[in-house]
């Protein structure tokens, strides 16, 4: 089984997805990808397909809830919303992220 090559990147993607869903309510995969591009001003380019392993995993961790629905253009898609557990995870990940970046910033400044 191929493991995630980069745990840090994986965690970042989780953080972004959780944050977006926390802000915007139910979204399908394409819309989430769009928002990541918009939010990061296209500076963080990911293969959009790599969202799906993350969405599946987080759904099974019960951080997200998935429901079938139709897009504006009438296509069948799965819409994801964040759960209470997901919000807790988001807080945790945000805190970690800030601690890490803070530490790295300090290190960069004083090294």
């Amino acid at each position, binding site marked *: 089984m*191929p493991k995630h090559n980069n745990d840090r990147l994986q965690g970042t993607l989780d953080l972004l997805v959780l944050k977006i869903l926390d802000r915007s309510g139910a979204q399908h995969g394409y819309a989430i*990808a769009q928002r990541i591009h918009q939010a990061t001003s296209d500076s963080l380019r990911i293969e*959009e397909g790599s969202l799906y392993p993350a969405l*599946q995993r987080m759904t*099974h961790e019960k951080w997200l809830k998935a429901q079938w629905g139709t897009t504006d253009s009438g296509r069948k898609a799965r819409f994801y919303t964040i759960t209470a557990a997901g919000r807790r995870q988001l807080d945790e990940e945000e805190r970690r992220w800030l601690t890490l970046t803070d530490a790295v910033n300090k290190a960069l400044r004083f090294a």
Partner: protein
Amino acid sequence: MSPLRRLWNVLRRDRLDDELRQEVDTHLALIEEEERANGAGAQATRQARARFGSPLVHRERALDGVMAMSVENIWKEAGFAARRLVRSPAFSVAAVLTLALAIGANAAIFAVVQRVLLNPLPYPDSDRLVDVDHGSQRLNLPSGLGITRGYYYQYLERSHTLDGIALYAAENATLTGDGEPERIRTTRATASLATVLRVGPAIGRWFSEDEGQPGGPQRVVLSHGLWIRRYGGDPGILGRTINLGGVSMDVIGVMPQGFAFPDPRVDVWTPQQITRSMGFGIWLYGAVARLRDGVTVADARTEMNTLIADITRAFPGDEFAAGNSAGIALFSTVRTLKEAMVGAVARALWILLVSVGLVLLVACANVANLFLVRSDARQREVAVRVALGAGRSGIARYFLAESVLLSVAGGALGLAIACGAVRLVVSAGPATLPRLAEIRVDGVAVAYTLLLSVVTAFVFGAIPLWRSIPLGPALNESGRGNTATRSRHHARRLLMGGQVALALTLLIASGLMVRSFQKMRDVDPGFNPDSVLTFRIGLPDRAYPTRAAAVAAHLAILDRLAALPGVVAVSASSGLPLGSGCMGNTLLVQNRPIPPGTTPPIARFCAVAGGYFEAMGMRLLGGRRITRDDVERSLPVVVVNEALAKRVFPNQNPLGQYVSSNAPPARAEGAPGPTPLEIVGVVSNTPSRSLAEPDAASQLYMPMSIAGGPGIPPTALLGPDVALMAFVVRSTTPPSALLPSVRGAVSLVDPKLALALVTTLQAMVDSASAQMAFTMVLLAVAAGVALMLGVIGIYGVMSYIVSQRTAEIGVRLALGAEPRSVAAMILRQGGAVAVAGAVVGLVAAFAGSRLIASLLFGISPHDPAVFAATTVLLLIVVALACWLPARSAARLSPVEALRAD
């Protein structure tokens, strides 16, 4: 996510994949639309692929992610856990053995409980079968009277709650022809028995109603065991004739293997030939009935009590009927057949099951402690895993995989132990344990063991888990032992205290049983059981048609036996202590009329040969004994036991008084009543049914030449039938060595006579306390194991605490603390926990020992001596377990200790 859910996911991987494909297709289509809108045109599809990446790869990754902890990974996890366990063999072996011992004990006792108490009796709809029994307030008999013909017909004709009732009576008879004469157990039963039990013969047929009428043809149905044993499984057995008690009977059927009614020793069933016109009768029978659908046992009991009150109308003018209802405050004690069979042992078995359950708890505490030590050692490893993002569930898996593996291994080994233990119980268990032959480790027991193993894994696995998953980042808990381990020490002390409490509870229970057993063995049986061989001889009516002939044959046998070398004394009685054979009847005292509305006293009438009291070693308390001369001259004399003398002749000299059995009302008009017998002696009491009898039964002994027997009309009701006598042979040689010459001596009198129930008086006394011995031994083993495991656990905890505090102790010693005071400090710590545990154990035992009160004999369930002795024993052992680590703490060299960490 739960393992079940994961398994489900694996099974529906295809469906998940379909859903994902749909989702991904939508996504690709939306990108394409976007690219087209941006003017990508024909490039749109390629652009979409470039932005999305390989749909196949991402789909696979997504699915694998979900399956990340799927079944394959559970195996992987188990494999890792197994490797970790193999790397620490001492820990693994200790844990597996501890668990195997405890789970094995639980599985074995459960197998017994399940087969004896829980398994339905081997009859269709057996929960509808009831034992129809009676008790009497006036006779002080809570149950066990059985039933009379009168009540059988009363219920048969008038009950609306019963769907059939069958009467039976067990007896013994000599089987002759086709080999050695053999004394076998037979049961006379009404034709309805097969329909009530809903079990028919495997070969041939059961009795018809006609064969159950007096004067009907003599038929017999064999047990499967007898058919194989004596007739070699002869397929042509039907229509053969066998000779039972001198009567030829046609074999009409063979019951299926395992049919054992009323007990497994029965080899032959014959028709009970009775009619209603034979009258009310006496308490000779047992009865089994089937309840109608929707009827409860309580309904049946209510109805029977009504029918009991009405018995005189059913048998007008029958004095026995009149005297055996309201007069003796008779009541129905109908209960389910299973309860009647196993009720007596149910409490003991449940208590044993609880006891081994407590042992399992002690074992869990021990293994949990081992785990705590292990998880401490790996605290940093766990902290690293948490820091790397392992969730609580990941850490839980890490530990639970180990505990499940250990306890499944323990369970498998325990199952093997249980199989051995159950075989031991079946071969060595007390014969009084009902359904003994049915006990085995079956599928239910295996399932129980498996369940127990898994539950056990979660119990001992959860404790260290709860202690060791750090709630926050735990990397800061570095090298030196510090305050963070305090809570872990706390958990250990809790486990240690719990072990002390459990072990003490079990110790007290087994201590009470041991004392009860000692008291029972100390009971003066009223006779001397040392070195006495006993056996029964039944004279067939055909060859010995009169009482005189039977008495002459017994005397001839006694003469031959007395002449054997090594024999000190010989005699015979219709019944021995702790056995059957004496006749219970009402007792009339001459010149003492029975006031109307009262019941005369009941006594057991025994018929003896001369010299019986000498041969048995019974003490003479007054008057004289019964001699050979009394027997030969048929003197109307009788010797009574102390209980009868005190009960019937309080403040009176019984010697010289005249007594007789109650005159049977059915005797012919003008026929003489039973001869009054002069009381010539008083002897010591002997137990009639069990060593634990609170009051000895009233008993009297008459010369066998004036008792009942062949040719004596049963209406005379003088005494028991002397055709069947139990012989006692006291010798200087061991009884077993005497047996061949005894057989020879008997066959010199009549080669066709069989020796039945050959045993020793000592063996009879032993088997009377066998059930208590069984409970006692198992409880003592459970308590011993609990104590052993507890001590090992406490020693382990104390040693560990000392090793953890090595640095601190080093500092204390370096600062000038006395080694003695260091040892005392460690001892104090262990002692405080032990005392707290002991207090809890004492309280639990005080509250719980009431549950075993009914198993005890001659001792209060709160016996202070037992409580004190077991507590002292426990505290000494625990002190020893604490002292060894304390001593090693005191012997630490401060320099070494400080360097150690």
